[in-house]
């Protein structure tokens, strides 16, 4: 038995006999109330998602999962394919299972996959990754006056990040892959 304080992205909890992977979580201490963890969990058998809140002092059943280092290979109609760098075994995860993390994957990126009963269920990306800004508006004088200090920038991997207005096309930036936020110049 475990405590909800151990909840993080990618862990698998057993509820009513079914394995559920935690896809999102947030610790909440509602003012003068008890402490809770609000989660979004996904049933690994049916794919159904639920929002559920656990009290810190209750117990949950965490299922053992295996972590394996893999290299990302390619994306096609079946999803995202990875290869175990040690055994050369290949595994594919569907677009649905990968979700928004897919935008960070580029060929031969080293990631850690969470394996449950032999199948990958979650990806752990490097927490910080470097990307190049390929498209953004130049800074306009006076933009800082109202406190509106970020602008949209498109990076080489194709997604949009909010960055400080002083950054220009061609610059390398560090992005936090947990939040999708700009961290600093690379």
């Amino acid at each position: 038995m475990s405590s909800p304080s151990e909840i993080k992205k990618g862990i698998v909890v057993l509820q009513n006999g079914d394995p559920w992977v935690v896809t999102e979580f947030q610790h909440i201490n509602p003012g003068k109330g008890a402490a809770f963890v609000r989660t979004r969990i996904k049933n690994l058998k049916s794919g159904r998602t639920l929002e559920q809140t656990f009290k810190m002092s209750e117990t949950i059943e965490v299922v053992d999962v295996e972590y394996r280092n893999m290299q990302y290979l390619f994306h096609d109609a079946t999803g995202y394919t990875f290869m175990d760098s040690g055994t050369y075994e290949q595994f594919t995860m569907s677009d649905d299972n990968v979700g928004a993390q897919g935008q960070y994957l580029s060929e031969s990126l080293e990631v850690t996959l969470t394996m449950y009963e032999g199948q990958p269920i979650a990806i752990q990306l490097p927490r910080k990754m470097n990307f190049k800004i390929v498209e953004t508006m130049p800074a306009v004088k006076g933009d800082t006056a109202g406190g509106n200090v970020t602008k949209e920038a498109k990076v080489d991997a194709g997604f949009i990040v909010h960055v400080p207005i002083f950054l220009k096309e061609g610059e390398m930036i560090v992005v936090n892959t947990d939040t999708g936020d700009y961290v600093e110049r690379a």
Partner: protein
Amino acid sequence: MNLHVLRARAEIIRLMRAWFFNQGFVEMHTPRLVSIPGQEPHLEPFTTEVVEASGAKHPAVLITSPEYAMKRLLAEGMERIYDLGPCYRNNEPWDGTHDPEFLMVEWYRRDADVNDLMDDTENMILSVAREFRVEPEALTRSWRRVTVEEAFREYLDVELSPLLEDRAKLAELAVSLNQTVTDDDSWDDIFFKIFLTHIEPKLGVEQPTFLYKYPASMAALARRSKDDPRYADRVELYIGGLELANGFAELSDPVEQRERFIEERVLRAKLGKQIWPLDERFLSALPAMGNAAGIAFGVDRLVMLLTNSKSINDVVPFSARERFQPEEEKQS
């Protein structure tokens, strides 16, 4: 950390102080270092020790809120006061909206109720935003005031009042909403599992929203509502996914306050947490405080809202993450 935002932060704080000054509030600088912390079962103060030159030692804590000192000042005869300064809470999640050291403004009025607190809060935010010349999208819509009972009706189509003293029925509702309920869960715990999953995430998303009139058990320092004693006059403000403020029409009955403190202390002990004596000076000051109302307001979060910052780490000079986490684990 972002220097543009830090400049904006300084200006926002200056404008807040100006608003309080214009409304006749006097700024109090209450102590950060005190001998007895609050009894809140789920807040963890930082503990330390005060040592006199003679070697005499006194256990001490950093405040989690200036509340006790502010109420004693009301009892001493102050009428409208505010305290704008850092507060400290240990064991907080470092998740983008919390830092163990954060800036809070708390203000109190004698002879006031939650409606006055809601008026003050709305006026203060709108005034600061106007003077700061920004209009975040979240502030362009009209403000809402909904009771907890109305929120249950609106988001779950459930009547809360018949459930107030019926743990079994509340548990049934929770289970029907895919929550787990254990034998250890109190009425409050089950309430929060429902509220935090199905109601709170929706509050303030469309419009700035005050949520008020909480079930009485959820408001240890609040007066019971005049029209329905099963509820208490507590209010929270949500804007754009952020919880910004938590206020009360303050309980001034020392007997009921003592009972609630003892209950909280028992709960602390049950949770295996450190316990401490009741603050007798605070309790004896209560009757002289009158019918006051007070609210605690997260300044860092207002800065986040007005500068369109996603994380508290962007709006403070050196966040806890930057100070305490090893270089390789740091996040923005």
